[in-house]
């Protein structure tokens, strides 16, 4: 599903050149749950931005679902993104002015899903995430865990092929963190590919593979035999 060849990202200013990613080669198959770990500044979020088509690499190739996308324009990336990728962020990134229902509905609006179908899809995912009773509330009225559940619901509602989660438990206490991890595992088991950046070795273990990054390079890739049932 995802394959990168010598992927690089270099930030240039007038005087300084900083290599955020240097020749990253990774491959992620459909149905995998991959955790990405590494110290602060190692390039995890940069990699996630490129994998999530939020940013273009400086060099190398990036094949996403069989298409080379590294030279895509913002318009092409936006199109690819909305059809295939769901995002979950550390800080939830819900729109404060929209209700829970409206936040979850948003990706479907941009996909121009018909109204009746949209209603069904949103309600289904809200039920699934057990936040249906909060549908008319605003994000500030919810706990962190509940907000992250909404964010996951939003990531899921359009049935994306892959979910990219950037430290989804970073702003949560351990019980809510466990809850979110359980949700992601369940989704993975249902067939959704998940790529997650995390600082926590414990949560990284939820994945079937852990990629370690250091100074913009992949240093180790650990495959695990363990699969959650």
């Amino acid at each position, binding site marked *: 599903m995802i394959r990168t060849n010598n992927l690089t990202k270099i930030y240039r200013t007038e005087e300084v050149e900083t290599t955020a990613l240097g020749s990253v080669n990774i491959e992620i198959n459909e149905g995998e749950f991959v955790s990405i770990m590494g110290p602060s500044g190692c390039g995890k979020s940069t990699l996630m931005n490129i994998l999530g088509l939020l940013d273009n690499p400086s060099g190398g190739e990036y094949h996403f679902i069989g298409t080379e996308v590294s030279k895509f324009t913002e318009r092409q990336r936006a199109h690819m993104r*909305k059809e295939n990728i769901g995002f979950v962020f550390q800080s939830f990134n819900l729109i404060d002015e*929209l209700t829970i229902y409206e936040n979850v509905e948003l990706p479907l609006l941009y*996909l121009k899903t018909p109204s009746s179908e949209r209603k069904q899809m949103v309600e289904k995912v809200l039920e699934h995430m057990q936040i249906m009773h909060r549908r008319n509330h605003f994000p500030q009225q919810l706990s962190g865990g509940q907000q992250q559940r909404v964010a996951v619901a939003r990531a899921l509602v359009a049935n994306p092929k892959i979910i990219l989660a950037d430290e989804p438990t970073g702003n949560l206490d351990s019980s809510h963190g466990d809850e979110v991890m359980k949700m992601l595992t369940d989704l993975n088991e249902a067939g959704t590919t998940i790529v997650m950046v995390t600082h926590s070795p414990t949560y990284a273990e939820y994945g079937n593979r852990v990629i370690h990054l250091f100074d913009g390079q992949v240093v180790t890739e650990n495959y695990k035999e363990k699969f959650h049932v």
Partner: protein
Amino acid sequence: MLKSYFKIAFRNLIKNRNYALINIIGLSLGMAAVFVITRFVFEELSYDQDNQFKNRIYRVYHDGKEKSGATQAILTTAIEDKFPEIEKTVRIGKYWQDYNLIRYENRIEKVEPFYFADPEIFDVLNIPLLQGNTETCLDDPDAVVITRQFGEKYFPGQNPFGKILTIRYGNSFYDRKITAILDEIPKNTYLNPDVLLPLKFLEQVEQSDLFTNWGFNSVTTLFLLKKNAEIEQLTAKLNNFVSALAPEWFKPDYRLQPLTRVHLYSSDISCRIGEYGDIAQVRLYGAIALIILIIACINFINLSLVQSSRRIKEIGVRKVVGAGRSALVYQSLLESILLSVISLAFAFLLLKLLLPFANQIFNRQMQLSLTENLSFFLVMIFIALLVGLVCGGSTALIFSSLKPVTLFSNKQIYSSGNSLFKRTMLAFQFVTFCGLIIASLVIRNQMIYLSGKQLGYNTEQVMVIMRPPGDTNKKYNVFASQLQNHSAIQSVTISSFVPPVFGNWITQSLEKDENMEWVIADTSYLSALDMKLVAGRNLRENEPGAILLNETAYKKRFSNQPFTPDMEIGTDNKKRIVGVVQDFHTHALYQKIDPLFIENAGIDDFIACISIKLSAGQIPEGIQQAKQIWQKIYPNDLFSFQFIDEKFDQIYQNDEQFAQLISFFTFLAVVIACMGLFGLISFTAVQRTKEIGIRKTLGATIQNIALLLCREYLIIGMISFVFAVPILYYLMEIWLQRFAYHINLDWWIFALSGLIAFSIAALTVSFQAIKAATANPVESLRYE
């Protein structure tokens, strides 16, 4: 989707209500000002547009050395049936306008000027009748046509049709039969008569050869041309025809002016009838409206940028979940259009409130009616939508072009290009801001100068009454001697002319074909008007050939030669100079003082003015006494007077109106610009929150931080001021050229304007800067 945009727009409005309020207030004020001016511009441009023959009606005027709208009454009779291009002609005249009186129920009242016209006026000017027949109502010399309002006033509760109205012409009263009632004529019509009299009436009563002499420029002539008439060709033919027909001394120089241009494009044509505007004024006000609109838009954009920068996360999220650039642009446009539509509603309310004041300032009777002013309403809506589109579009383009990654990274979202955009907008606002302050100071100072300038005579406590037609010196002498018996009256004088524009200003050439202003006055003229003699003595009774010169005339003729009592002037008609009077301004300060002489001659032959100098502190008593004596001596004439200083106020009315408008718009522009500035400094404070926190933890003082935030604005302000000064110097020089006597554009005016602009701007930015500087640094660093 649209529903979602609306929802978020409304919720954002409520959430950020303070910004929304500032934005809406600024925009509403700006729009209201623009609408008031636009309404005036529309009114001016609408004159005679409703006339069904508007493209075929032309006014004849003389295009000689001095343009004049007065033509000869004989013209239309001379050319009758000679020009197939001319379908109809009409002559309109206005005479004795200071003596337009009617008598009813034994009372005499002054009314709006009577117009004398040919019956064709109804067809040509499209004037509708409520009662009567357009073909015949002006046929009879004894007829009179009045408006419905006039009838309601003087014949309340009755149908005035067929009734008798007594009108005054010259020194006689005539009973006229009302043969038609005019329907209401729209105000934006070239001619708006209350009372119409047949021109035939004039032919009957006028003793002079008004209708047969090519030397009498006495009527306004309008032509209704046939379709597709060639104007240039017709003009040439007309001039040639008249040239062959008229006496040799008469050199025809006729030109034709389309009716639709008469109202606005006639400022250089003298002897006009009807209501006039000035295209230069319309353009000037249009430019002011445009500047205000731009200031309001810049303000709107600045404040929208502030708000959008607070919504970066939302924009980022929308991008991440699939919003394309166009979706974000639509959303931004919708939000700004929503704001501008709300502002439009408020602006409309303000317009309704301001319209009576605008009517007063512009001297118009503008209305707001959806049916009659539909195009104006459409333009208002168009302006509001345009503002929304331009303002929403510019912020949308900045934010929607950012990559989603940038939107989440808390980085500076302004690229150098955007920053330049912001600075340019700010600089434009500052230049306008400083410019308007300079303009209002200069204009206000000039107005103070005009009202305070010594004119060489007394403008206060002198009331001027126009002498009734047919009055004799014998009758006047009785009036004057009775007046002088009262303590409230200091002196009385009769003269052909009283400055600034009472009576007839006549010129005469004494020698070398050099025209001099000629005032015929009695011996009390100097004392009643407090004029000073600089040499010689005053005029005496029964002293034929004796004159007084003003200083300008004396210097022009005799240079530095000292005055001697036996000096003479004139070639054929020699005059003896008995004294030199100190220069006085015969006109308002638009004109230089011209050479002038005063002579005590037969005043009987002239339309004259009676000037009565009242004692200070006894003005009401003086007026009352004058009125009582007047009614006794001139029972058939209305006691109507004006003080000289009031006349000056009338003359300067246009400039005073301009001064008031500029002051108002300056105030408005300053308020709007300050709101924008306030928004921008808030924006900068938000953008630099982290930097402020770090600097504070490193020991920066409140002053350091405040200066850091204000510095950019103060520098832009100073640069803009440097730009504004030469532009305004040039523009104000042009404006001051209107006046022969004006203030100098001293450096202190610019310095003071700069100081005012700088103080206002500094106050605005320092408030927010200090607020940001005094915030707890922990707050700003907590999220890092």
